[in-house]
């Protein structure tokens, strides 16, 4: 096999079909970038749900003096007896793993840690403004309903916040984004296959003299088909490289940017991005090879 001969044929073919080649490259790049973003969302959601799974808790906030919550209207702060009763009630529930009490001082410290960068906000809040709360760790975060119902109406409880519910909303949004990216990626892959088919067809027509002579003098099928398949492969590879650049930008702009808005969420690592890039590039090239090979069988008689 004469490599330089094949490469010169490939170069001629790519140049003759420049517009089609560019169309293939762009389609593959966009398709693979979207597929990659879908996979990156997957990785992000995966590491986040791992991170959160042992941290989610159900928080029952208790009434403080002059509390604005509906459940606390017309009564003072929660009494020590009510607190004891609540604690006993929570501990009695079968779904509960463990429970601890957070007093106003501790709540203020947590608040300070979370909003350390926002000094205006921090200065406006005093220790007395912080509500006391019971923090309940559930055996299974998804089984929160019974505990929630038991605590929601109990005397002295202002409101109940369930982390799992908030996370579910966030994960639901991520899930939708992921599916949207994957569906568009699939459409792009389909378009790429059709485009490659057309490119190969044009290429085969442009080079019908050459292939006719090759057939005549007894060139092997592999030798005749190789330049066409290589054209597809190179277009796929260039598309893959462009999609890799897009994915790296997505990691920096979208994922790391998003991280700034969600305190304590986990960061997508570069090694995860590298895995996604490798996978999408390989998929892009393989799609191109398969598409060119199968259209060749239709348009190039050997």
């Amino acid at each position, binding site marked *: 096999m004469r490599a330089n001969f094949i490469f010169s044929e490939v170069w001629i073919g790519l140049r003759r079909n420049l517009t089609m080649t560019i169309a293939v490259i762009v389609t593959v790049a966009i398709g693979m970038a979207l597929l990659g973003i879908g996979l990156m969302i997957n990785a992000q959601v995966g590491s986040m749900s791992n991170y959160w799974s042992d941290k989610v808790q159900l928080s029952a906030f208790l009434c403080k003096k002059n509390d604005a919550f509906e459940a606390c209207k017309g009564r003072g702060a929660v009494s020590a007896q009510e607190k004891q009763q609540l604690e006993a009630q929570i501990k009695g529930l079968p779904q509960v793993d463990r429970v601890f009490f957070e007093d106003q001082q501790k709540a203020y410290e947590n608040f300070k840690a979370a909003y350390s960068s926002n000094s205006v906000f921090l200065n406006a809040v005093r220790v007395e403004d912080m509500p006391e709360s019971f923090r309940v760790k559930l055996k299974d975060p998804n089984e929160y309903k019974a505990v929630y119902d038991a605590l929601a109406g109990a005397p002295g409880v202002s409101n109940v916040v369930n982390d799992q519910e908030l996370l579910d909303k966030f994960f639901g949004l991520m899930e939708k984004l992921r599916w949207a990216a994957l569906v568009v990626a699939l459409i792009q892959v389909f378009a790429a296959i059709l485009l490659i088919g057309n490119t190969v067809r044009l290429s085969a027509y442009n080079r019908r003299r050459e292939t006719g002579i090759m057939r005549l003098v007894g060139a*092997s099928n592999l*030798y005749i088909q190789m330049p066409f398949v290589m054209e597809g492969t190179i277009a796929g590879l260039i598309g893959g490289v462009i999609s890799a650049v897009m994915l790296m930008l997505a990691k920096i702009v979208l994922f790391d940017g998003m991280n700034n808005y969600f305190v304590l969420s986990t960061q997508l690592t570069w090694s995860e991005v590298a895995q996604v890039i490798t996978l999408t590039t390989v998929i892009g090239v393989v799609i191109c090879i398969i598409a060119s090979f199968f259209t060749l069988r239709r348009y190039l008689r050997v």
Partner: protein
Amino acid sequence: MIHFDNVTKVYANQNRPALDHVSVDVDKGEFVFLVGPSGSGKSTFLRLVLKEERPNSGAIHVAGKDLARLSNFKVPHLRRRIGCVFQDFRLLPNKNVYENVAFALEVIGKPRRFIRKVVPEVVELVGLEGKAHRMPDELSGGEQQRVAMARAFVNRPMILLADEPTGNIDPATSIGIMKVLDRINRTGTTVVMATHDAAIVDSMRKRVVELEDGKIVRDQSRGVYGQAY
């Protein structure tokens, strides 16, 4: 070298057979004219030898191989032992004489050193010495056909098939073409040439096989074009 045994070929969508129970033997080193009017089956005969078409019935042996039992995978290897020349030359317009001839060796993976050695030899054999770097559009029809013959012969095939090689060339130039074919035949290559050109057939005094409506109506050694004697 070429052996047709009761071969019939009917193209799809056609009632009349292109070849009708044809049996013919061409020995190694022979020079055979295939004559007959258009549509008499000459081209079909050549296409069958190349296994570009399959016969509906009958057996074909080429260079000792039974074509019916030759897998598609091995057809390229059969074609490497057969050279082809056509009426329309079929040169690559963007390659010069040397490159056109070298192309035939490049695509079957011959090493560059070998190509550099044999291509000039063959270019000289067909009488194009000094014109290796001309482009096809700078050559006359006769010279272009010589390039095509060089390309067909450069891999030293056992058989050379020529489909009306003088069809686009004036009679004076045709004589030169025939001399090259004769020279190639003298190296031991079997030559089968389909033609309409009565003058050439008459002047060469080689074996003549005449086809009409797909049947062999005459097979004569040292024959002429015209009627059967």
